[in-house]
């Protein structure tokens, strides 16, 4: 049963990533692109978690944690650059 749930989860997250990519390419403003990148990171974390369940090993979650950290720092850095023209003042 968990295999069906994982198949559904991978499909849904892949579709979600495709939708985010559409918004990233189309998005009329910079804010839309930052938001699309942030959401792509969130969906990638979800995929890593599902891959960790599928492989039945607990080693994937360090990767999920690192991606969460890097994604947040990247979002804030991009937003800061758009606000101030500089990242570290």
């Amino acid at each position: 049963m968990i295999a069906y749930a994982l198949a559904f989860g991978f499909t849904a997250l892949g579709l979600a990533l495709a939708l985010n990519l559409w918004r990233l390419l189309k998005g009329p403003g910079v804010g839309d692109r930052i938001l699309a990148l942030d959401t792509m990171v969130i969906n990638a974390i979800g995929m890593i978690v599902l891959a960790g369940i599928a492989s039945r090993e607990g080693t994937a979650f360090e990767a999920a944690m690192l991606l969460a950290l890097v994604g947040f720092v990247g979002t804030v850095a991009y937003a800061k650059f758009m606000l101030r023209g500089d990242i570290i003042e």
Partner: protein
Amino acid sequence: MTAGFSFPELLASALIVLGSGLALIGSWGLVRLPSLMERLHGPTKASTLGLGAMLVGSVAFFQLVEGKWTTHEMLVSVFLFVTAPIAANMIAKVHLHQLRFGKEPGPAGPPAAPGPDSQWATYEAPRPGTPGCFADEPAPDRRD
């Protein structure tokens, strides 16, 4: 499935389906909603509820099915709960500044000022006496 119905697997599967479905709904909202301030709503719900449900499903799976206790998922979940509002706030500030300089025309236009004698906080210079105000201090050496 040959294993049949077991409650732990059913619980983990339900949480995984719920979480990935919410993530898909959040991304669909990102595509479908008309302006950025509305688009911010979709992915923030997806990141808290969707990923939260997937991570709780992962904890339940590893504890109840595999017999291993893991807490990394909770760490990821707590970190996302803390950082998602901050990232959304930064994006909203970028959007307000883009609107102010007319670089990002939205269907609703720029938002109205919050009061008759005040402006959005991100537009204003810091007031004297508040922690963000460095007006009294000497200018730092610019090394650039």
